């Protein structure tokens, strides 16, 4: 950070402290520990919070508290809020591009990453009041009953975001989760965590209620187990293609029959990586029977 100050000449820039995001607040990690992020020349870019299992526990409490309220927000408004996130991100394009460059991307790649993230938010904002129409059904049962099936959010979802895509990977997993009325706890990319924290600031400025999205930074080796095992988490989404990780997550998830969504090896830049089945992954189907008579 000191080196950066020199680069910019006379004015000493103010460096930013990157913190985690829980329940609409930006605390430091409860553990007090950190890990450093370095640029390609080995200079320290930032001290990143090394989130702990207590942070995860607090985040889960916040996500659970927020879930019923968020699911109760009507679809139109949920769509408006996602659209607002996109607007806020658009307004901070340059900040995000700079941060991605700082974490090793070329300007061109960074620009693509940010623009694709904005467009992805718009894409899922549009689904807010449509996925029900595509996935729900009126069922022509043989008896004198009106029978229909609708989707409902699974509940609290833990997300281990892709490591290789600091912003787009995060957005591509958070947006379909929350647009369907779930709340989530996200583990940011370990190698590129800065965009996740700045994205939390965008969320914070976008009418997203506290607790709907909680973002932790930290080490996968320490936190993956927490994300998969917590008994008050209903589904775990993980973007990690490693077979032994997958097996561990599957096994831990079984303790409370978590829904397990594996999203390894996806090119998040590809158009084919955006589709409404990402929303359906964290939905339950609820069927109602109602008599027809006088």
């Amino acid at each position, binding site marked *: 950070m000191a080196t950066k100050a020199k680069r910019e000449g006379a004015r000493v820039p103010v460096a930013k402290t990157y913190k985690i995001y829980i329940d609409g607040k930006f605390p430091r990690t409860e553990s007090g520990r950190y890990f450093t992020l370095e640029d390609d020349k080995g200079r320290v870019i930032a001290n990143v919070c090394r989130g702990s299992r207590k942070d995860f526990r607090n985040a889960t409490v916040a996500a659970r508290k927020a879930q019923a309220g968020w699911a109760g927000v009507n*679809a*139109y408004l949920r*769509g*408006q809020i996602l*659209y607002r996130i996109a607007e806020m991100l658009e307004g901070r394009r340059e900040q995000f591009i700079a941060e991605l460059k700082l974490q090793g991307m070329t300007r061109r790649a960074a620009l693509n990453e940010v623009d694709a993230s904005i*467009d992805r938010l*718009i*894409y899922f*904002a*549009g*689904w*807010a*009041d*449509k996925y029900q*129409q*595509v996935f729900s059904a009126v069922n022509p049962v043989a008896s004198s009953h*009106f029978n229909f099936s609708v989707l409902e959010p699974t509940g609290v979802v833990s997300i281990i975001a892709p490591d290789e895509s600091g912003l787009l990977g995060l957005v591509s997993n958070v947006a379909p989760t929350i647009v369907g009325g779930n709340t989530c706890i996200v583990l940011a990319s370990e190698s590129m965590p800065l965009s996740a924290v700045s994205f939390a600031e965008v969320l914070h400025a976008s009418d997203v209620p506290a607790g709907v999205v909680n973002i932790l930074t930290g080490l996968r080796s320490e936190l993956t187990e927490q994300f998969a095992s917590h008994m008050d988490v209903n589904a775990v989404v993980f973007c990690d293609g490693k077979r032994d990780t997958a097996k561990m997550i599957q096994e831990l998830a079984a303790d409370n029959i978590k829904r397990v969504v594996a999203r390894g090896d996806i090119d998040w830049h590809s158009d084919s990586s955006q589709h*409404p089945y990402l929303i359906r992954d964290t939905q339950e189907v609820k069927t109602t029977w*109602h*008599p*027809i*008579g*006088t």
Partner: protein
Amino acid sequence: MATPENKLAFDGGWEYSPAPESTDHIKVAKKYELFIGGDFVAPASGKYFDTINPATEERLSRVALASDADVDKAVKAARKAYNGAWSKMKPADRGKYIYRIARIIQERAREFAAIESLDGGKPIREARDVDVPLAAAHFFYYAGWADKLEYAFPGRRARSMGVAGQIIPWNFPLLMAAWKLAPALACGNTVVLKPAETTPLTAMKLAEAIADAGLPEGVVNIVTGAGDTGAAIVSHPGVDKIAFTGSTEVGRIIQKALAGSNKKYTLELGGKAANIIFADAAIDQAVEGIVNGIFFNQGHVCCAGSRLFVQESVAEEVIQKLKDRMETLIVGDPLDKNTDIGAINSKAQLEKIESYLDIGKQEGGEIHQSSCAVPASGYWCRPTIFTGVSQSNRVVQEEIFGPVLAIQTFRTFDEAVSKANNTPYGLSGGVWTDKGAKIFRMTQSVRAGVIWANTFNKFDPTSPFGGYKESGVGREGGLHGLDAYLVLEA
């Protein structure tokens, strides 16, 4: 039930002071041109017509009268835009333009609402709380569909139609423009839209919004005029699809005119909806539903609940409560925030309504109107109910399109259904009962495109709307509303 001892009094006590919406924030030009090819252009004929404020009978502005030549120019501009930018654009980008329109409507909501109220006579409360937010919501909803059409019609490939000609009515000018434009644009079509001759102003403000949103020129073209302008759109060979909302009479003419052409069409026409109150209904909320069903927007609503059927055992109670409720409705200055019923949209419409009041009386119906005062100038009609009428009466059969309710009673479920269906119309219906099973039996039994249960006159961009029988062809709104603007291929 009503005796001198137990009669409620609503007038003569505390009165609400005037609470007028200010108009200092709105911009209405002295003259409006046609919006063709992204520019505001003078009509070929050089002719303009007045649009007046029906509450004061004063002129608000002068609006270009589009002739065949102007319509031709508009259709060509739309075709050029279709062949050029619009149909080739990435669907997600098309969506972004439509989102922009939605946002601009939200940002200018207050201005849109005030102008809608001035030009059409509707209460500012309704323009502000219903028309304008719903219009924005429609653009939002369909913007999202632009890049998702493959999920709407599984097994088919959806492609745009080309140039859509759209003709909209005067009862919800901005909202109907939104209903028409949003799905058409999302599906990749370009448009020539004609607003009604008595209410062109918000369409022209929408033209400004569309220009400000930076849509490629010619994607939306707005031509103002009366029936002849509409006919020119319908008969223009360069138009691929006609969407019309208006009377069944004109709808029939359009369907005939289109016979033999390859143009596709959707028609959203008249109605004479049955609103059915069962004895086990939540009566006080049902009374609100009756009021909302027939007095919303001065009764200028194609899906208005204009035929009320009340189960005999509660008829007296319902009618007394309805009469008391009518006493609290404020008729007058549409711009007053407390006005419940604004001005009748035009002199011609007022005359039509008044002729039905005479017909109803001649037919032997018992007329009751609320006792409120109405302004001296402008076009007004007090909320009105007819009791003692029957299925054979014209006020029961024909669409009045005003704040006039025809009330009948019934005894059994089957009787209610049979009377409700005994009409050439089939746009909407209402049912009020505390019993869920009865609701679903009723929705199965009433032949209409929309059934409201324990509510009435509810609209949402996600919800399809449209009629059975003479109430129209096709649906607008929701996933089903996309159908009208797409060709579905194998």
